[in-house]
């Protein structure tokens, strides 16, 4: 059994959070509130580090005045807490959303669309042909503009089955991941804390 105080605290926190599975209780709430507080505090510290290293230092030490703009915009985000001037916060939000949208659009067009099409039509084996057919079938399932009737209706039906296979695989891997996380905690309790694991 560990004699390290940190391990003991971590062990007790683990049990406190785990106890919620049984029912809500004060130990869980203590651990939960400490967790939220520490996470939020950590986020602030990391954010401060980003502002200091990316903008404040170049501004103060190298006189790069351009950094005043994002700093002012960042401060203006907090205008939302002051009635009457809350609308000013829309400007930094607009800048952030503009950057995010620009980055997302160019990434999505290229990485998630064009390159996916070229990978799909590059057919060289039976599996490649199957992949091409399955992609077309799955895409046709999302075609809502007009009801597909007649013999071609089999295509979206096949797409539906393909999507079910994908969701089934996703369920299987989700189970796999959740079990791994619980195993990790059990390894900590039995190994690091209680020392009964080889």
């Amino acid at each position, binding site marked *: 059994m560990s004699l390290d105080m940190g391990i003991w605290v971590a062990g007790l926190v683990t049990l406190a959070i785990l106890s919620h599975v049984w029912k809500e209780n004060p130990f869980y709430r203590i651990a939960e509130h400490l967790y939220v507080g520490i996470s939020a505090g950590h986020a602030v510290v*990391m954010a401060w580090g980003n502002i200091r290293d990316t903008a404040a230092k170049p501004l103060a030490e190298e006189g790069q005045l351009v950094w005043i703009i994002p700093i002012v915009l960042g401060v203006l985000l907090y205008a939302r807490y002051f009635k009457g001037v809350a609308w000013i916060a829309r400007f930094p939000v607009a800048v952030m959303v503009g*950057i995010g949208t620009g980055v997302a659009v160019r990434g999505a067009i290229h990485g998630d669309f064009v390159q996916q099409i070229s990978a799909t039509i590059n057919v060289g084996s039976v599996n490649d042909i199957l992949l091409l057919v399955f992609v077309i079938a799955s895409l046709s399932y999302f075609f809502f503009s007009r009801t597909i009737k007649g013999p071609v209706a089999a295509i979206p039906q096949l797409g539906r089955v393909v999507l079910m296979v994908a969701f089934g695989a996703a369920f299987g891997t989700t189970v796999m991941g959740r079990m791994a996380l619980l195993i990790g905690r059990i390894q900590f309790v039995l190994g690091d804390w209680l020392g009964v694991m080889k």
Partner: protein
Amino acid sequence: MERLQSIPKAWIYVILLVVLAGPLLKPIGIPIQISDEVRTSFNAIDSLAPGSIVVFGFDYAPGSAAEMEPQALAILEHLAEKQVKVIGISFQAQGPQMAEKAFANTAWAEKEYGVDYINLGYRAGGQAAVAAFASDIPGTFSTDYSGKPSTSFPIMQGIKTAADIDMIITIAPGQPGPEDYVRQVYGTYRTRIIAGVPAVAITQVAPYVQAGQIEGILGGLPGAAEYELLVEKPGTAVAAMDAQSLAHLLIIILIILRNIPNFFGAKQAHAQSVSNSTQKGRGGRS
């Protein structure tokens, strides 16, 4: 049979704990097979020449560390052996701490900070930060984790954009993750990407792997276990594999128990519909 359909919740919890803890205390030793995807990743990393520059994205947090950390540690051991240089970065606020821990617990602890490896810390902004990193590495990560100018370290000399990087390895349970590196880095610079993903994300990154945008993946804890075996350093992931196997078996048994009535119901319904249609058919003919 009905009893098996209504096992109380508490019992299921206890059974789950026993099934997971049992093999951890007394391992069964089910053999672990190396999958193609992990071998591909291993071979890709193995192909790196000594002195190559690898950017290692510590894009995971303690919440997912049980799955992600064994992957990171196993790959870092391999990288140390390959004598490459590792630039640690993170787009997840709790990632730099994970990087510190990982470097300290692998062969990297023996190497020289700033020369062989570096921890550049965290940058906010998600996918936009990944894009910023791709086009301007020293500008985006102007300091290391402790606040010293990154360009003052020998390892950062000559590194400007993602084109100066030989490989990106990201260990990421969510976003920003491999998808964002594909969209913002691979799209422009064609930098090789290896991704350690949690089991949950294996199915989501599969299209990128098929398209060749991601060269190889490690999926979940089994992916980590296989890599541990390939680098001949069995660790927590290998130790967890028996429990992982039994957990899957337990879930499958529970699903079967749940669906026994449906199966028989379906068979009965099918039999009934067959007999009905036969009767109708006969009726039609007569």
